[in-house]
Each structure stands twice: as C-alpha cells, then as structure tokens.
C-alpha cells in the first residue's frame, strides 16, 4: 500500500503515521454523520429519559401510554401495517407476473422503470393526485356516479381517513415491493420446480413446500421494510388530511411546532418510540434478507 500524500512516509520513523492518515481521510464523514445524524438522534433518545429540569425519569415513557398518544401510535401502526400488507400482496403478484407469468419482456422493463419512478413519487404531490382522483370531485368518484350511479362517498368512504390514507400509501408501497421482490423471484431456480415436478409434486405442492418457504423471508422482510417506510412518512398524510388524522408523525409535527403536549421531553419520548418501531422493523428486515440470500446462493 502506498501512502497517498506523504513521499516522506518511508523515512518517517513514526509507526502510527499511516493510521493517522487513514483516520484523517475518514474524519469529514465521521464528523458529519456524528453532527447531523447520530448526535441529534441520541440527543432526543436521552432527552426522553429526563424532565425539562434535567432530572432522570421514566415518566415520559410512561406518558406515552396515555390514550391520546397510544391512539396515535395505534392508527399509525394500522395504516402502516395495512398499506405494507396491501402493497406486499399486490406487489408480489405483479413481480410474479413479470418474472414467472410468461409475459413479453417489454412489460417487465416498463413495469420496473415505472416502479422506480412511482416508489419515489411520494410526499405532498401524491396527496394531490389522490384528491384529484378519489376526492369528492375526483375523476373516479365522478365517473362512478355518472356512469354507474354509484355514490362512492355514499358508502361512507372518505379519502381523509384510515382507509383513504392506506390506499394512498400503497401507491409507493406496491412499486417498492416490486423493485425488491423481482430479484428475489429471479433467484428462484427453474430446476427447483422441475425437481419437485419429477419427484411427483403438484403445482400446489411446489408452491407450498418449496417456492413459498424459500420466498417467505424475502416477502416478510420486504413487508417490514414497507411498514417502516410508511410509519415514518408524514408529508402525504399531512397534505391529505391536515391534522385531522392523528398519526404519530403528525402528532410529533404538531408537538415540534407548538408543544401541544405541554412537555417538550414527551416529544422526545414520541420520537424514541418511532425510532424503536422503525429500527426493529429494519433490523428484522436485514436478518430476514441475510437468511434469504443464504438460501439463494
């Protein structure tokens, strides 16, 4: 290995010189990530265990379990779970269709390109798109009323609700699932199917005993990733429902803006709760992915 910046390195008696250069090169990144990622997060995490006066306490954590905060977590979990499960299910069928469905190649490349775009089409504009489509004067709402005499809002449907938010989130959840699951399905070897067939297995037995057990770590892992993805999202929900739907990120947003809970450190506890939930989902996702990759080698 050659020292990049020091022609004198060979004559220098300092044993540690290379090590110092190594660390100097890493310094900008380490300082940046400490200052703008790790310390701010740790600041909140530790803040969750202190009173505003600086005394150690578990009261903030205990206060999370009050009905209003709990209901926010509960709605968030429900929306994230529903949109990730829905996204996973539809995404799986789409990925299956393009990988194993025997469709022409252009369908696959179009779908993957489109998924790359759609999975990044989130935030405020996504809310506008769904308002324009499924809002009270949206295209689909009017179409259903005009052509079928079917009143969507008459059924109790409301875009600014749990269900409305779920189907809006699925707009970026489905393509994300397609993007992650397509390579996993590509990894399903043709020989596994043929081996099971020649051993006498039916198509159903192949799916239940071979294909699905091989795929489930990928499926479950990706669903968890989608869950975390939805759980942290705020812009779409805020633009769609204002503050009428009380999900955790919106509660935290209100707390940051105006201390609606009248306890700044309770805000830290809410943030900690979010990190724990998204963190656990991500760690499980990574573990499941490692398992899936081990099998598909």
């Amino acid at each position, binding site marked *: 290995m*050659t020292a*990049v910046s020091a022609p004198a390195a060979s004559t220098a008696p300092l044993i540690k010189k290379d090590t110092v*250069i*190594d660390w100097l*090169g*890493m310094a*900008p*990144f380490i300082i*940046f*990530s400490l200052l*703008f*990622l*790790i*310390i*701010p*997060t740790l600041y*909140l995490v530790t803040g969750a265990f202190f009173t505003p006066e600086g005394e150690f306490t578990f009261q903030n954590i205990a206060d999370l379990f009050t009905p209003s905060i709990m209901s926010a977590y509960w709605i968030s979990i429900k929306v994230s779970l529903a949109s990730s499960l829905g996204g996973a299910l*539809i995404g799986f069928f*789409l990925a*299956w*269709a*393009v990988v*194993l*469905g*025997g*469709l022409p190649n252009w369908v696959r490349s179009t*779908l993957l*390109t*489109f998924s*790359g775009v*759609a999975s*990044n089409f*989130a*935030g*405020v*504009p996504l*809310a*506008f*798109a769904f*308002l*324009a*489509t499924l809002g009270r004067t*949206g*295209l689909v709402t009017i179409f259903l009323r005009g052509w079928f005499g079917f009143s969507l809002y008459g059924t109790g449907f409301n875009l600014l609700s749990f269900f409305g938010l779920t189907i809006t989130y699925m*707009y970026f959840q489905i393509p994300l699932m397609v993007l992650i699951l397509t390579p996993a399905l590509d990894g399903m070897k043709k020989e596994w199917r043929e081996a099971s067939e020649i051993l006498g297995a039916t198509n159903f037995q192949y799916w239940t005993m071979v294909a699905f057990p091989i795929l489930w770590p990928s499926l479950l892992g990706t669903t968890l990733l989608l869950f975390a993805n939805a759980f*942290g999202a*705020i*812009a779409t929900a805020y*633009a769609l429902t*204002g503050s009428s739907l009380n999900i955790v990120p919106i509660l*935290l*947003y209100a707390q*940051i*803006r105006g201390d609606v809970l009248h306890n700044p450190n309770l805000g830290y506890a809410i*943030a900690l709760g*979010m*990190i724990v939930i*998204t*963190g656990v989902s*991500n760690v499980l996702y990574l573990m499941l992915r490692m398992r899936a990759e081990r099998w598909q080698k």
Partner: protein
Amino acid sequence: MKGSRIGAWIAVIVGASYFIIPLLGTLEFSLRMRRGVYSIDAYASVFTDPQFRATFGYSMLMALLTIVFGMLLVVPTAYWVRLRVPRMRPIVEFITLLPLVIPAIVIVFGYLRMYNSSSVLPLTGNAMGTNILLVFSYITLSLPYVYRAVDTAMRAIDVRVLTEAAESLGASWTTIMFKCIFPNVMSGVLSGAFITLAIVMGEFTMAALLNRPAFGPYLQLVGANKAYEPSALAVIAFTITWLSMGLLNLISGARRGAPAR
C-alpha cells in the same frame, strides 16, 4: 401454462391501473379550472405565481448545493474506504443506512433542539445558518442512495490500480481525486445526483420545520388554499420525478450494458 399467463396479464393490468388512474385523475383535474371546458388556466395560474418561481428556484438551488457538497463528502469517503480502510466498510455502510431507519421528522427534531439559538452552534439563529442546516439535512436524507450509487460505480473500476498509476506519474492528491476518481465514477455520481434532485424537490418535513421557503411547504400551502392549482403542481412534480428517475434509469441501464455482470 395458459391459465397462469392470463392471471399474469390480470395482475399487470390491475397494477397498471393503480398506477395510471391517479395520474390521469390529476391531469384531468388540473385542466378543469375553467368551468365546462378543459383549459390550462391552472398551469397559467401556477406559473405566474411569484411564490411558485421563488420556492421552485430556492429548492433547485438547495438541490444543487446538496448534490455538490454531498458528492464532496461521499466520493472521497467511499474512495478512502476502498483504498485505505476497508475494515471501516461495515460501519460506514451501517451509518449510510441509518437515514432509512430514523424518520426524517425525528432527525429534524434533533436539529431544532441541538442547533437552536441558545446552543453552542446556533445554526437556526439566522437564515444563512438555517439554509446550511437544510442542505446538510438533505445530504443526510440522500446518503443511503448516493453512497450506494457511488460505491457501486467504484466497484466497477479498480481504484487502487488507478491511484497507483496516477501516483507513479507524479499526480498530486487533488489531481487524483478530481481528474481520476470523479470522472471514472461519473455514472454513480450522476445517478446519485438525480435521485437527490427527486428527493429534495418534493421534500416537505425538513423545510417546513426549519421554516425555509422551499417547494415542498409551498405545495402544501397551495393544497390547503386552492382547488385546481395543486393538481397542476402535482403534474409538474411528477414530471420532475419522471425526468430525474428516467435519466437515472438511462444511466444505470447504460452501466448495466457494460461488463458489470
């Protein structure tokens, strides 16, 4: 065989309508401003709004700064990890994944508490400091995507051989970095840049909570107060995403054509 193909077509058609109908709905809605006929009034209204131009320009500038400074941070780091400190790789990769785990709203919450006007580093005390903080927050948000893109591009070239060749010709450190490494990982830098552009242009949380006049909060504001303009804005935003991601796909597609696989 036949049955599964029909099922596949059904799945694709259902999925495609899920993607396309909201886009059609938005487009149709954005053209409905004038009663009874389709018109581009909503777009005219948007484009003549000085606020639109101001916030759009501001976010573009922020995106540009994010790309430049983000690359100055990520490319040398990825290079250094490959060349000198491979043992740091797992740690660096873990850190670059963190922004996917920690929600943006939590990160910005931390900023507001750590860099408020009474802290050691009162970045939020004035507009310039807050702008800097916003750029840094965007660098953080795009870190997972940018680092991956650059590192993948770096895997395709042998940075060690390239460095040693340049050194043997007497190149200085800056020459190696900007004349050898950057141009050779250009595909990674570009795809990182486009995804950053897509993220920054639509970003809401950071800008809103740092109170900066960015495009995201402007969109939200219009959405709360106007009827047809939001759809026009959504069409514009979607076009931007399409352009960035389309270019990204073009670049990564071109790279995939290369010997990588």
